[in-house]
């Protein structure tokens, strides 16, 4: 091709002259000569149907047209939680997130030129410890759900036992991932039932079930039904006596009002970082898997994922940060690594740290209080209309409304609420036939939205 025929593309760096120069150096006439060692029969000769928009404007418009078919949580009013939540991302936070220095680098293999993101991740880990009451945290896992799986495997490695216990009030998606993650290690899972009145785990039953063959127990608090597990401490002492590790899955916003898992004795605390500022909902990803633990010299070596620590340099007295305990990781230990995780959610972790720094102590508490009060307002207004919660246990910002929508009417209910610009929560069925709805309030819903919701539910019931 001559220079005059050459057509550049914004993502391709070389001009025809560059290409010719490099080919000349390599002694080849055609760039395809670099593929000369590949058998002809496997080279693809056809054409493929791949979308193509030549200009940036055309590309943007085409995607916008497609996306326009979505209805957002801002056009509607979202009462959906379940592990992720619509949040407000302050302007400053996105400004930082768009700093190319943070988003276009990779894992800090050359620490000397990557101190910025390393320090930011160290600060993230530290903030998570403040929330969870733990001593240390890793620099992220994919999400809460994979965190449950990783935590179960970690307990098994620590205790060298192959049974794992969890409570029935677990989110179905997290349960599904847990089941998948433990197949390879052949862990057997057992479930502690919940009390059908309070919605809390059945403490007596849990104590009965726990014996010295279990590696760990996973308890969500507040649990998936929204109920606060206020007797959890009783279980923890019992578990520890039997050498069972206690993993708590915490709603990270609830920790502004609720005692931290570290304080009540859990060994490992996991959760979802999106809800405390990791980022927008993004249809469920990217998210931020939080994993934190009590310090133990031996157990820390079983923690999956990257960990940033403070260290020294060749210059006396100079502080630096680096990824530490790398011998746990796949790039060094290969088949003996604690996990296969490599690429994680570092930028979401950094984003979460910026969010928490913006909120500060008081802002973090304010947001949690608003969530609490909004949901309690809805609950009490519903009750005035004779619509009850499924469970009597205390809750934070989520609860199951006793609606018993028959399977056949589920779609109708969804549309009924959609017509009123409401996303009505997550359907959950105890009998496989009738559905109650798990609703969650963020701080984005104002009093009118809450009243509209109560009104709509009332209308449906009539």
């Amino acid at each position: 091709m001559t220079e005059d025929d050459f057509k550049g593309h914004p993502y391709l760096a070389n001009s025809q002259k560059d290409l010719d120069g490099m080919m000349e150096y390599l002694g080849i006439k055609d760039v395809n000569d670099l593929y000369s060692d590949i058998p002809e029969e496997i080279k693809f000769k056809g054409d493929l149907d791949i979308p193509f928009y030549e200009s940036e404007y055309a590309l943007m418009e085409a995607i916008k047209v497609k996306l326009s078919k979505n209805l957002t949580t801002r056009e509607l009013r979202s009462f959906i939680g379940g592990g992720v939540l619509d949040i407000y991302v302050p302007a400053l936070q996105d400004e930082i997130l768009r700093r190319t220095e943070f988003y276009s680098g990779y894992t800090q293999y050359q620490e000397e030129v990557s101190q910025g993101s390393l320090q930011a991740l160290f600060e993230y880990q530290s903030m998570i410890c403040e929330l969870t009451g733990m001593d240390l945290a890793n620099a992220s896992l994919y999400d809460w759900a994979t965190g449950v799986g990783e935590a179960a495997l970690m307990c098994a490695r620590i205790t060298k036992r192959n049974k794992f216990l969890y409570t029935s009030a677990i989110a179905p998606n997290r349960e599904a991932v847990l089941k998948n993650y433990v197949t390879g290690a052949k862990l057997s899972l057992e479930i502690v039932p919940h009390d059908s009145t309070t919605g809390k785990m059945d403490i007596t039953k849990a104590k009965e079930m726990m014996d010295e063959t279990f590696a760990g127990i996973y308890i969500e608090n507040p649990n998936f039904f929204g109920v606060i597990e206020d007797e959890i401490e009783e279980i923890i002492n019992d578990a520890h006596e039997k050498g069972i590790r206690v993993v708590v899955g915490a709603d990270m916003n609830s920790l502004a009002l609720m005692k931290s898992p570290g304080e009540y004795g859990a060994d490992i605390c996991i959760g979802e970082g999106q809800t405390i500022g990791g980022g927008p909902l993004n249809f469920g990803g990217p998210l931020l898997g939080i994993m934190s633990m009590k310090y133990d010299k031996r157990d820390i070596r079983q923690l999956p994922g990257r960990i940033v620590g403070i260290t020294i340099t060749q210059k006396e007295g100079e502080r630096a940060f680096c990824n530490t305990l790398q011998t746990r990781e796949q790039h060094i230990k290969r088949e003996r690594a604690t996990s296969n995780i490599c690429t994680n959610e570092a930028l979401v972790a950094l984003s979460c740290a910026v969010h928490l720094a913006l909120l500060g102590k008081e802002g973090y508490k304010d947001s949690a209080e608003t969530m609490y009060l909004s949901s309690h307002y809805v609950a009490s207004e519903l009750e005035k209309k004779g619509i009850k919660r499924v469970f009597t246990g205390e809750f934070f910002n989520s609860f199951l409304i006793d609606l018993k929508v028959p399977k056949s009417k589920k779609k109708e209910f969804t549309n009924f609420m959609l017509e009123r610009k409401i996303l009505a929560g997550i359907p959950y069925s105890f009998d496989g036939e009738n559905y109650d709805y798990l609703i969650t309030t963020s701080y984005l819903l104002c009093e009118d939205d809450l009243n509209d919701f109560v009104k709509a539910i009332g209308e449906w019931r009539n």
Partner: protein
Amino acid sequence: MYRQAKYDEPLIFDLSKKGRRANIPPRCDFPREDIKIPESMKRTKLPELPELHEGEVMRHYVRLAQMNYCVDTGMYPLGSCTMKYNPKINETIARSEKMMYLHPNQPEESVQGILQILYELQVALGNLAGLPHTTLQTPAGASGEYCGLALIKAYHDDHENKQRDEIIAPDSSHGTNPASTVMNGMKLIEIKSNEDGRVNMDALKAAVSEKTAGLMLTNPNTLGIFEKDIIEMSQIVKEAGGLLYYDGANFNAIVGKIRPGDMGYDVLHFNLHKTFSTPHGGGGPGAASVSCNDILEPYLPVPTIDYDKDKDYYFFNHDRPKSIGKLHGYYGNVAIALRAYAYIAALGFEGLQHTAEQACLTANYAVRKLEKIDGFRLSHGPSIPRKHEGVLEATPALRNYDVSGKDIGKMILDHGMHAPTVYFPLIAHEAWMVEPTENENKDTIDKYVDAVEIEMEKARKDVEYAHHAPYNATVSRVDIGWSVKNLVVSYKILKEKLENGEYVP
């Protein structure tokens, strides 16, 4: 000469002063005294989050940003990581309100737009893979590997071949390969590579048996060398009853030129943050797609995203009785997938082919120039063309001048350039794994090579200079060993250590 920013930036906690606010979250007017958490669960002491004002938060993070090297600073030839340019339009598109504010549990009819894009992306990636069925649920390459291997395992179990639990992989494979194998409860059979860096066919023949679940192989391999015998390998493995897994970490070399499905692979993952340009995020988020053929399709994770042509309706298909289950809480890293879609659509089929070609050309040019520098040699098969990356060995530098591959990497930092991946793959010595990508032009590569030349010359004269580099980075050479011994991994631990009078810098 490069001078990286250096601030003695305190930890954000040490900037905190009581009562300052940086942002006021939305709030309601309900009386706060109505908050009644059960006594046994009440928090008595608020978490010590820093209290700053808005401007100070901004300064803190801007300073940290300035102490960070990135793709947009300069050449970042990390082998196996494909550090290509992250198009800015993708960042803008991903920030559409119609993307950001979608809850994963919203009813299908309210998210037809994003489902359509995900579906079209699945089709495009499936086309490039030569494997028709695709999931986007896996949030990273390692998760993709885990998923693909789980499909293979499920297939064998389903065909009453439960004993098939061995995955064969060469000793040049990525570290995630063996780790994902073990996570699936399978055994890794590592086979030695040939002198030319390719799979040793005799070793492969010897490794297959009635226990073989599959072969896991990236192609081109981690040396950047194409496994030309792939068809024969595929036959050997298939005759033994095994399946083939393609680790797509190196797909940038052949995108649009060769389809893994046509090489005999049954299942693969692509790293959307490598070949398809989505940002690496300082470690993540990335995303992976997993594509497979008809025999593995029944086992794909739930839900799959399907399309009903008659009703022009996109939907989640949960009705998959043989599925391996779920690998992510929701549908994977959707906002990353959207960026990958935008990248693919900005290039089209021909454009993608050109990226592969230029990626190979820049890599060959770079390694052939670098190998001429006193201190370096090319690892394995000197006459074989490389693909998107190549591996040099700094063995002569170490042997003749006491300068290690790591030292040279550190010296390069002083030029405002990033080091390659060092000490990987493990089958090379003093490995320098170079992958410039199509984002680098000839001039930039020439400058990179010149910089290596200049630094090697300095190092040959003064070995101490080499051992203490870098000099112009934010901090001096970092000692990782100290961090492992002392484990100062949170502010809480830092405070405790300082209170106990222990030394922490």
